[in-house]
């Protein structure tokens, strides 16, 4: 694992702030009626997405669920085109046909966000099968919510990956709720990573049970996922759990009757960006100016992205009917 240098850390900081500001702007655009449908914000989970994706090589692969903006941006997808997708424009990453939940960029091995809970987990296994079949040495990072561990897809995909020794890092983003249902109200195993035991044997074969990570600490996430990626590259599948928190509602217009304001406030204080900023200022003297500059640059990036999206064309009838089949 490469120890991140200062430039790398600053880049992670930039990514985390970019995600946060992107999400805040999306919420505004949703209120204005410019974004429609479901909008699931990544606010609070930035350290998990940025730390995990940073552990990948360019030829590695990533796939996730519908709460996908953070992963898309962390993987380096074009901010303008991601924002254009939010606004349903033809310049969007999915031509305006996917929307917030379905961001993909084939060229970056970002295989998409998926709206059916757990539906992408078998796809991750399939992508890993191709890697193994072709004798390549890349890995697939498959992220999912805590809620996704309760659907049959999870069991089938993880079990198959263990039987076939597929190079997959299964990463549960445990943000403690699936919509309004707290983990312990939905799962027999409160420590979700223990699910790995169901697909592992006493002799150590099968799925490896990885650690439960402090998902609010980007460095901890990076370290744990880096180790997991190397493990998967050489040995087969591993399951990890990142303990994080969704600071906003499940999607826009969630009255959040399932948790208290106090609970949320406590997490806001320990939020991942604040924590990382504190770490940086404590570690590098005189870095505050740089961080402030990054903050300002990010705001400009977001403004430009919104302008780009607003000025983009709507999809056409041709777009509507294209790509149902390969012609």
């Amino acid at each position, binding site marked *: 694992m490469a120890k991140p240098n200062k430039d790398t850390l600053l880049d992670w900081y930039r990514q985390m702030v970019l995600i946060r500001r992107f999400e805040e702007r999306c919420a505004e655009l949703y209120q204005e009626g410019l974004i429609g449908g479901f909008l699931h914000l990544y606010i609070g989970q930035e350290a998990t997405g940025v730390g995990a994706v940073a552990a990948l090589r360019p030829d590695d692969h990533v796939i996730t669920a519908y709460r996908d903006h953070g992963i898309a941006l962390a993987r380096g997808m074009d901010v303008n085109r991601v924002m254009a997708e939010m606004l349903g424009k033809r310049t969007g*990453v*999915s*031509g*305006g*046909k*996917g929307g917030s939940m*379905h961001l*993909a*960029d*084939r060229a970056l091995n970002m*295989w*998409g966000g*998926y709206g*059916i809970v757990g*539906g*992408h*987990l*078998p*796809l*991750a*296994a*399939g*992508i*890993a*099968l*191709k*890697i193994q*079949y*072709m004798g390549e040495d890349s890995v697939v990072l498959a992220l999912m919510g805590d809620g996704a561990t309760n659907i*049959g*897809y999870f069991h*089938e*995909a993880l*079990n*198959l990956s263990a*039987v*076939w020794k597929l190079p997959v890092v299964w990463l549960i983003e445990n943000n403690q709720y699936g919509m309004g249902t707290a983990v312990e109200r939905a799962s027999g195993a409160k420590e979700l990573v223990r699910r790995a035991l169901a697909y592992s044997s006493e002799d150590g074969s099968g799925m490896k049970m990885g650690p439960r990570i402090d998902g609010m600490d980007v460095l901890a996430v990076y370290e744990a996922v880096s180790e997991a990626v190397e493990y998967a590259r050489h040995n087969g599948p591993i399951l990890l759990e990142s303990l994080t928190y969704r600071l906003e509602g499940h999607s826009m217009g969630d009255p959040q009757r399932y948790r208290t304001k106090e609970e949320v406030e406590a997490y806001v204080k320990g939020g991942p960006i604040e924590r990382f900023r504190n770490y940086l200022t404590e570690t590098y003297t005189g870095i505050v100016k740089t961080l402030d500059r990054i903050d300002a640059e990010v705001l400009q990036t977001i403004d430009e992205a919104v302008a780009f999206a607003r000025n983009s064309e709507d999809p056409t009838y041709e*777009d509507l009917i*294209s*790509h*149902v*089949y*390969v012609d």
Partner: protein
Amino acid sequence: MADRPITYREALSAALREEMQRDERVFIMGEEVGVWGGTYAVTRGFLDEFGAKRVRDTPISEMVIVGAAVGAAMAGLRPVAELMTINFAFVAMDAIVNHMAKVRYMFNGQFTVPMVVRTTTGGGKQLGATHSHAPEVVFAHFPGYYVAVPGTAYDAKGMLKAAIRDDNPVLFVEHSTMLQRRSPVPDDPDFVLPIGKSDIKRQGRDVTIVTYQKGLEYSLIAAEELAKEGIEAEIIDLRWLRPLDLEPVFESFKKTNRCVVVEESLPMFNVGAEVAAQIQQECFDWMDAPVKRVAAMDIPLPYAREIEQMALPSPEKIIRAVKEVV
């Protein structure tokens, strides 16, 4: 090369073998495809011939059989995933309908999904209610993939090869009671039939019968009986439910002015409903009688042979239906 009479099962095996020999990226995955040799013995000997990398036994996990095939296809392989029978495809419905069918569209053409899901359909074998569906029509409701329903050995081979070579996903539905049917089939490894082309299996001037698979078999029997009474049926084998090729049906109807649709699926929202609707759109001025539909009864299928057969289409039922319209 001369055409050789082989069985529907041999035709399927030959198609798979030839395509696997032709393209390294083609592989098979599913329950009992390897060590067992295939539930219907279509892949017998394949494990020895191609090895465990390309002939992959899976756990009983329909959702991931289809879903992993989708991922592998998106990534550049050409999986032939097998679902033991179409009854178990319901378990994989989401993987088929929401993923196999849609990842291309949803991501605006960034992904291609060159895969085949092979499965078997059909009732009439005393397997009881959960194992006797012919529900391919349910799967034909959705755009984004093709649905093949071959009714002869010749079609089985040419269509399966076409399905494997095509860059679109295909649900390839084989009929479990027709595996022993024989017909002449070309040996030529490049014998491939076009996708989405129906086929006139019998010429006639008095009535158009639109059908596929088991319905085709019964309709050919019925037509011979009807011919003895001077009624000549034209039989059109759809071969594909998607793309659905009704041009030959319209052409035939404009000559016969009468149509009977025969299928093994349930009677509501089925192929007959679609064909009847399209005929009245396209051929209203040529209609001399209502389009008649022969299908299974609107009940789950029972075990006992006597009553199971009662619920299914038969040559007699087809003859009766034809006589009602001519």
